[in-house]
């Protein structure tokens, strides 16, 4: 191997650390065209083009992400994506059919599904890593089934079982699994976010969630007391043509939406904070250190205004929103290098099927690459 003539740490004092910042050069003007054609052709082909759309979208975002004078690249072939999506859709439809008509049997399937999920995640991570390259060298993912089981099934149960109190532990498992099992070429990537640091990012969202919850409940109670007579009339008049299940469902949404927004905001703050912690403890090939400095408030602001703008424009602001977020994430991410980045060599491996990655995609999992 060529690496042997670069003995690391032989002369530690001469190692020069150089900060390489990520940058994103995509523009709304350019992406809008790609996006509108993606959406149009996806609709016209009743979803079939979505596989091609995904490849074009990913290539646009990867190809515009620069690091140290080179870009990333996305190599999945649309036909792989299409096959993966068809399999996932068939599985989802079968599952929903069962859940609707045979609730008892579907309980068994739900449990079986819980055990299949880590496999989907594992294969999805592997596919996504293997179709990603930087400087012609592909990434790889070596995580196994039980790692995914711990990170996502046990981790998920832990979060819900302790009402979020142990969420940082689940985050530690998750980042360990996703980032710590990545490889760049034939070199390992390590990620070991420390628990106390993750807890350091936990207080603010926990406080927002608990405080906001109390405020909302207080407001709801106050409203019920203030308007108790009107509410009573509203529900008791049998002849009132306004009262229908439809209205009750709408009322339910009105009551639940503020809580969802609260949960959403707390989630944004937590995600941004833990991304900083995890990336700051990620080391590539034992010599290049990732660095992330997201400002939590700024990230939440961009996410929320992006969503509002997208909804207000019936989706047409989405290209602008996506570019804006990609640009922000690139500017707050860097790599502290202690040597050249072009000395790496990869192995060309079979990418495997895209079922896992498409399951994650269709269900809206965020890989966080």
């Amino acid at each position, binding site marked *: 191997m060529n690496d042997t003539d670069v003995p690391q740490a032989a002369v530690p004092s001469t190692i020069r650390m150089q900060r390489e910042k990520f940058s994103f050069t995509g523009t709304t003007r350019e992406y809008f065209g790609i996006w509108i054609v993606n959406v149009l052709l996806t609709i016209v082909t009743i979803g079939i083009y979505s596989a091609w759309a995904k490849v*074009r979208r990913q290539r646009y975002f990867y190809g515009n992400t620069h690091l140290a004078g080179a870009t990333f690249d996305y190599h999945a072939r649309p036909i792989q994506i299409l096959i993966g999506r068809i399999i996932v859709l068939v599985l989802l439809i079968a599952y929903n059919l069962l859940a609707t008509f045979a609730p008892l049997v579907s309980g068994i399937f739900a449990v079986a599904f819980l055990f299949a999920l880590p496999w989907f995640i594992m294969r999805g991570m592997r596919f996504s890593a293997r179709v990603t390259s930087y400087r012609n060298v592909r990434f790889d993912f070596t995580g196994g089934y039980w790692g995914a089981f711990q990170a996502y099934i046990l981790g998920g149960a832990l979060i819900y079982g302790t009402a979020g109190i142990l969420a940082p532990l689940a985050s530690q498992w998750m980042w360990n699994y996703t980032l710590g099992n990545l490889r760049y070429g034939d070199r390992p990537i390590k990620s070991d976010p420390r628990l106390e640091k993750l807890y350091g990012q936990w207080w603010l969202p926990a406080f927002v969630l608990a405080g906001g919850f109390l405020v909302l409940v207080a407001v709801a109670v106050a409203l019920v007391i203030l308007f108790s007579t009107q509410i009573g009339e509203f529900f008791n008049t049998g002849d009132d043509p306004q009262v229908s299940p439809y209205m009750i469902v709408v009322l339910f949404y009105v009551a639940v939406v503020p809580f969802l927004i609260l949960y959403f905001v707390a989630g944004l703050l937590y995600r941004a904070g833990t991304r900083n912690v995890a990336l700051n403890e990620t080391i590539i090939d034992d010599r290049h250190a990732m660095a992330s400095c997201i400002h939590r408030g700024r990230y939440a602001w961009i996410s929320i205004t992006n969503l509002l703008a997208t909804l207000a424009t019936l989706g047409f602001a989405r290209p602008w929103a996506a570019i804006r977020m990609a640009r922000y994430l690139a500017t707050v991410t860097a790599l502290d290098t202690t040597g050249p980045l072009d000395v790496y060599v990869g192995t060309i491996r079979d990418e495997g099927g895209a079922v896992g990655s498409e399951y994650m995609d269709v269900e809206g999992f965020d890989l966080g690459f």
Partner: protein
Amino acid sequence: MASETRLPMAVEGLWRPPAVGRAKAAVLTVGPDATVTAADRDTGAIFSSAAFPTVRISDRVGSIPRNITFPDQSVFETSDNDTVDTLVRPHRKKNFGFIHGLERFHPRLVVLAALVVAFCFALYRFALPMLVEVAIVATPPVVPQLLSQGALASLDQTFFEPTKLSAERQKALTDQFTAIAALARGGNGVAAPAQVPPYTLNFRGGGSIGPNAFALPDGTVVLTDELVELAQDDEMVLGVLAHEIGHVDHQHSLRQLYRAAGVTALIMLIGGDIGSGTEDILVQGSALASLSYSRDAEAEADHYSVELMHKAGHDPAAIARFFELMRDKLGDKGENDFLSTHPATPERIAETKRYAEEIASRKK
């Protein structure tokens, strides 16, 4: 052609051996014999060379760099997209670069945006119902049978008790039910007779479900004792049963299922392009919209009950009378399952009454 006298066109970029990170400055040329060659920019030494059809050229997306991959998996990379297109065009099919052409920033994009809006509407309004019909026709009869058996078995285990109605009472109701069901097969010409299954009436003790009646897609109709007791006469019971037959004849449950699946699948497929937040909101919105669809289905089944009862020589307004009874006896408290899916709203009572009169006068 003039190109024969000129030097082969060239584009500058970087060349990398297979899976190797370090790049060399290179020049790519396409010779007159359609040979693609990457050579050292300074020395002219050939890195890789192959016939055009064996070389993979990545599609143009925005202004990101293009990759030209040789059969030996070495890669030439360049950001000079225009020159690559000029080099490649003579060797490609006519529609080469069509997608990228559409995507370019141009006033035409406004038209595409308008088309998206129009197609979204058309898809939801026309294509989706059509696909649902196709799916229903393509569903073999065994599917609703299996699904219905499963559903009934699980309800029997969880909620229902054996019926306490006497055998004579059961027989009386079953005979009348069979008589109207015989008229229902393919009733309105909505469903082809082959796909409408034979109807069977099943009696159950409602348990915590209380007064209720429902139909499963294979034609199994379930009636609870509590509903029979609640009704003042058999006509009312038959009116409700005719309503349930209407659901089966119109294949409402399968239709609703396919519709919900279709909408969700489409939202999920566009999901990557609209962001997960918007996707979640759309999925919730479509759930709300499907509520109004189920209201339409109820209205359709009401009309069906009126028509079928009239055809069988029964009281077409029986279902309207039953709704009035429900309203008076149970109130609109919403604590009853039958009420939550079959709301006895004033407009519903008025509409069934009106329709019953219309039918009665029309066919006299």
